[in-house]
């Protein structure tokens, strides 16, 4: 029970830390500093001491702002879908094991529950903007929906190929099973779909800044936008924790070893994500779909071959 309460704070602060790290790493790779860890001494009275929790400041600020609800929107759907999205992303943290702690991941069919919750969260990130009635949001949502379909394909296949090869639908049993070749191939497949789901650079066409205003979130402001940001923070944690717990066998280790390993591996993944984020220009949606179909079909084939063997 205590674990379940602790995981709320842990996941929240890890999510904040990861989104800070993405900003910091990509800034550093672009030859600049990024959010300061130590503020300059003479500016501390105005600008604060540290900016490690910069994403949290963003969210608190958004909560303190006035929320504008456009006349042309379907108000109920527009207002409630951020909350539903947050609830889905929030609940899924309990079903994902965290470095050797099983939490609720040993309930039957927990793999299905997690994949369902993550799909639900992303789905309501699409439905809310549709209700806003803004043409920019429509364009963004169309791109997001197309991207969602192709990434979901790879996501589901990688999850269930693991389930078939380990002969279990319980996340905890999969995560403590022994390491084999399917882990690698399915992990690669999962990694490509995480790129699309977290909008890492070649696949950020759905919220393409300055191209289609702010994409799906054009009409969102204040508290509702803050809730979407909060959802994103939980989603970053969800995907990284899921990736590590399924494909990297650290859950069998004792806790004092597995927690530092979890942190190191997650920071490594964030680093790789930020390198990809910095090095790539933005794909057009057509190119992204073609890329995904090519990569996913090849990886799926390899995946199935390794699974059968």
């Amino acid at each position, binding site marked *: 029970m205590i674990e379940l309460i602790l995981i709320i704070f842990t996941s929240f602060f890890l999510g904040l830390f990861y989104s800070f790290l993405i900003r910091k790493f990509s800034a550093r*790779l*672009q030859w*600049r*500093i990024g959010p300061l860890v130590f503020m*300059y*001494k*003479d500016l501390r009275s105005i600008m604060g001491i540290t900016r490690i929790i910069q994403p949290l400041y963003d969210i608190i600020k958004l909560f303190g702002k006035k929320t504008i609800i456009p006349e042309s929107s379907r108000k109920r759907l527009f207002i409630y879908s951020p909350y539903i999205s947050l609830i889905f992303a929030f609940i899924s943290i309990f079903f994902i094991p965290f470095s050797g702690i099983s939490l609720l991941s040993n309930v039957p069919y927990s793999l299905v529950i997690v994949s369902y919750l993550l799909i639900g969260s992303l789905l309501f990130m699409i439905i809310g903007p549709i209700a806003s009635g803004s043409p920019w949001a429509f364009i963004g949502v169309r791109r997001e929906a197309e991207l969602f379909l192709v990434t979901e394909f790879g996501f589901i296949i990688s999850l269930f190929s693991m389930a078939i090869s380990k002969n279990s639908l319980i996340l905890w049993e999969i995560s403590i099973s022994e390491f084999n070749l399917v882990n690698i191939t399915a992990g690669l497949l999962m990694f490509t779909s995480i790129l699309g789901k977290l909008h890492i650079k070649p696949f950020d066409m759905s919220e393409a800044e300055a191209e289609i205003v702010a994409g799906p979130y054009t009409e969102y402001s204040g508290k509702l936008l803050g809730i979407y940001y909060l959802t994103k923070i939980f989603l970053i944690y969800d995907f990284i924790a899921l990736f590590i717990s399924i494909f990297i066998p650290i859950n069998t280790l004792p806790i004092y070893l597995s927690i530092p390993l979890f942190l190191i591996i997650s920071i490594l993944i964030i680093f790789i994500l930020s390198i990809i984020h910095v090095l790539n220009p933005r794909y057009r949606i057509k190119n992204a779909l073609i890329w995904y179909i090519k990569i996913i079909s090849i990886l799926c084939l390899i995946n199935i071959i390794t699974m059968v063997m």
Partner: protein
Amino acid sequence: MSSEIKLIKYTIKKPMTLKYPSSLIPEKKYSQIPEVLRGLLQRDNEKCIGCKACHYSCSGKATTFQYKENKLIIETFTLRCAFCGYCQEICPEEAIKLTKTFEITINNPNEREAYITTELDLLKCKNCGKYFATKKFIDRTYQRLIEKIDPIIKESVMNDYKKIEEYCTDCRRMLSIKLNTHPKKYVWLEG
């Protein structure tokens, strides 16, 4: 592959970012400041003679003047000034100088800081009692006249100038016959 090599190079190098709003390293606070940078303008109230050349050359009508009682007030509205430097170029007394101050923020356009003001005392016309020009302006005109004039007629012009010095432009014209300062007399002299 070259982009990856560049990435590694720039990641290892020290970031190019300045510590700008902080002044921990004073000499490295700003980025490059060019020698010809034109910043906030400064008008020397001692040197200014009130010729209004800056008003007539101003590209954005930022410099205006007005007569107020016995004062001539020349004002430059900093917010409208484009720092083009025409006034510095044209000023005969080199009273206007563009400094290198470029960090200018103004919170209220009506406050005193938004204007660069010069107040000059005006002379009163002996005949009609109108305030017409500044003392410095008259003196400076006299000096320039002496410098450039033909030495043959220098003495008579100087005498004439002393006579009309304290009258305004309208009165000078009206009184030119009475005081015998009409310029036509030089034509007769030459003839």
